[in-house]
């Protein structure tokens, strides 16, 4: 009895003395290091935002969003055609890539998760995510922009919105596919079991149970793909090129924000440089909106 | 009983139950033996010992019930374990009754000893021996799971009943011959009756042992005796 009554204070004493030891010092030191490094990472990010706001905001106006780009030496104007072009080409990219991505994800996750084809698709998709975007541009340039003969002649050649959308589609396809696969994989197996147990077919199970449950996560993937595609310059330089005018058809060179920024920021014209800053600000806002909506959609699921 | 339970505490609780029951059985056996010594050796000390020791047996009866309830509550015994617990608890009831009969015998003995010895007491000796060995055998059948021994008890109980009946008849005859000895004869008749009850209880213990081993209910199966 006596030993057990003595022990607790003993134990507490040890707990108290260890607080002032070397271990506690290291613990505090490392905590400080982590906090300061975390602040350091904020510096580039915050300075980008600061620069964008400082240089881009003064020129941000309705006309900047709606008018055509100014020629060198001119004043005023905007980049309305580039916003439209960017949205359009991202849309084309999505329309091309989403069905492929989601259907492939359904196949490799639901129908034949362990088949050789599924493993190949999965492997190739992972490889594609690592491919530099410029390669996508070069590829689309070769497939679409260059004139073709023989059985490929039906593909319209030349710089065009199609070609830009195609390049972006290739760029985002692996992202959509892999996030959709993850989304489907995270649907509890118990749901599928319940559905099959009630006599549902494969298709009914996917359509009525798996997809509805996985949809928010799939949408998140799509939104992240949008955010990435909207900011890409390299694939578009090779495929959509640029245009000073409003888009008339999908078969002609098309303006985009990223290429406009690239073009204007390398000129000697001060006004064009200022426009590049404003366009950058708009682009960042667009991408941020896409990112935030992705998170909102995903959070709704939880 | 082999192999042992995965749960050692279960094994321990069953062992505790069995040990208490066997301790109670051996005390009951000893009490009956003491009652016999008191009666035939005309020794009042033995009779008093029997009456005093009964308390210990009562305590053990309560303890066996407690052990049994403990096992049932904590371990939900199944199959042979369940049968063992049930038959052990039933046995303790029967043992307690046997011990009570031993006390009754001891009380009657004290009165009998106070009076002059009657020769007819010798006729009670075989009845006492049969009842006592029946108790020993019933306990042995429980302890060793000896079904054959337990089955034999039924027939022996019937014999004991017959012995008791003919003893009672004899005593009644003797009563009309010798009126002043009637109180002693009455005591002897009662004691034979107690011994006959002890035989019944030993038979019951035997039936419980059979149930524990083979899940067979042999009660009320033979030709009606009572």
């Amino acid at each position, binding site marked *: 009895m006596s030993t057990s009554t003595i022990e607790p204070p003993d134990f507490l004493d040890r707990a108290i003395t260890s607080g002032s030891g070397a271990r506690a010092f290291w613990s505090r030191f490392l905590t400080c290091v982590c906090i300061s490094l975390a602040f350091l990472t904020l510096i580039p990010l915050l300075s980008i935002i600061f620069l964008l706001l400082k240089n881009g905001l003064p020129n941000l106006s309705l006309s900047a969003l709606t008018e055509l780009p100014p020629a060198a030496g001119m004043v005023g104007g905007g980049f309305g055609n580039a916003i439209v072009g960017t949205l359009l080409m991202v849309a084309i990219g999505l329309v091309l890539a989403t069905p492929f991505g989601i259907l492939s994800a359904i196949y490799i996750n639901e129908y034949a998760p362990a088949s050789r084809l599924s493993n190949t698709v999965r492997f190739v998709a992972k490889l594609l995510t690592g491919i530099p975007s410029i390669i996508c541009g070069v590829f689309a340039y070769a497939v679409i922009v260059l004139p073709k003969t023989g059985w490929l002649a039906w593909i319209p050649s030349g710089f065009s919105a199609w070609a830009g959308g195609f390049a972006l589609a290739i760029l985002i396809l692996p992202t959509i596919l892999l996030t959709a696969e993850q989304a489907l994989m995270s649907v509890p197996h118990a749901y599928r079991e319940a559905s099959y147990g009630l006599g549902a077919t494969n298709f009914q199970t996917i359509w*009525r149970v798996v997809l509805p449950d996985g949809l928010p996560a799939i949408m998140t993937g799509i939104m992240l793909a949008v955010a990435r595609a909207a900011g890409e310059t390299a694939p578009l330089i090779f495929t959509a090129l640029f245009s000073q005018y409003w888009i008339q058809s999908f078969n002609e060179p098309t303006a985009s924000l990223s290429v406009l920024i690239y073009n204007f920021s390398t000129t000697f014209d001060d006004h064009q440089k200022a426009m590049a800053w404003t366009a950058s600000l708009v682009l960042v806002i667009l991408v941020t909106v896409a990112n935030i909506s992705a998170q909102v959609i995903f959070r709704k699921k939880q | 009983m082999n192999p042992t339970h*995965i749960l050692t505490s279960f094994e321990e609780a069953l062992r505790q139950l069995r040990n208490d029951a066997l301790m109670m059985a051996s005390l009951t056996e000893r009490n009956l033996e003491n009652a016999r010594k008191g009666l035939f050796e005309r020794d009042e000390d033995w009779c008093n010992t029997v009456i005093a020791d009964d308390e210990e047996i009562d305590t053990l009866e309560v303890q066996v019930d407690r052990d049994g309830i403990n096992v049932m509550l904590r371990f939900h015994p*199944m199959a042979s374990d369940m049968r063992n617990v049930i038959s052990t608890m039933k046995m303790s009831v029967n043992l307690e009754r046997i011990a009570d009969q031993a006390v009754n015998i001891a009380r009657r003995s004290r009165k009998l000893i106070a009076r002059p010895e009657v020769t007819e007491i010798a006729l009670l000796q075989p009845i006492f021996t049969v009842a006592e060995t029946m108790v020993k055998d019933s306990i042995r059948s429980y302890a060793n799971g000896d079904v054959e021994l337990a089955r034999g008890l039924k027939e022996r109980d019937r014999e004991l009943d017959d012995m008791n009946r003919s003893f009672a008849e004899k005593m009644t005859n003797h009563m009309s011959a010798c009126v002043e000895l009637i109180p002693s004869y009455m005591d002897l008749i009662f004691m034979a009756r107690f011994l006959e009850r002890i035989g019944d209880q030993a038979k019951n213990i035997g039936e419980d042992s059979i149930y524990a081993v083979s899940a067979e209910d042999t009660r009320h199966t033979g030709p009606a005796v009572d």
Partner: protein
Amino acid sequence: MTFTMEQPQTTSESEKSGPTQQTSPRADFLKVTNFNFYYGKKQALFDVNIEIPARQVTAFIGPSGCGKSTLLRNFNRMNELINGVRHEGDILLNGRSIYDKKIEVIALRRSIGMVFQKSNPFPKSIYENIVYSLRISGVRNKATLDETVERSLRGAALWEEAKDRLHESALGLSGGQMQRLCIARAIANQPEILLMDEPCSALDPIATAKVEDLIHELKRQFTIIIVTHNMQQATRCSDQTAFFYLGKLIEFDATQQIFSNPGEKQTEDYITGRFG
């Protein structure tokens, strides 16, 4: 090793059953003959023969990996969702092989309800959960759907608790309610058999008691097969008990018999907790 049950009640029940009853319940309602089952190269069931009577509760007990769930999942051919499985022997439902080429596995599963270990309502409303099996078979009639919802919920003793929140998410129910919802969902299609794979293992004692009470009610209408690790549960709610060990059916008998005086030593060792 064949165990045939003598079931006097079932014969009397078949006499009572009305004209709406398409199939008369029989003692060998669900019959498994010389059944072997393999996951790839690993054999999970060895020469199982069992005849499960209709309108009774049959419990499957045995240590983990003994094949009891595997057999259960063969009754509605759920095991075929796993790659590389193979079977030998036959399972007859009311005298017809469930492996008959003419029988569609989808239709088979619709006539056999299944309740799983972990309650798994869909992330939909209570209403939609129950009518799922009707929707997938193309039923659109609102009145039929409504009626099914009420009948199934009443059948699963959940109507009073759920009637005011039919269109709320099923995931807002308590654990025990969810499991009863799963039972309601399983009986919505009026199956003949209800398979239950450890339906109470994740429930508290009160929810468990409710489900067991429900099982007792449901056996008037359905043939129930329940896999359980809880022997008290098997004794409480089953009429027959089958003991499996290492993929073999060791013993099949009336529950009272199994738990008071099993015929096989392995059964005795298992139910008394003497497994080495």
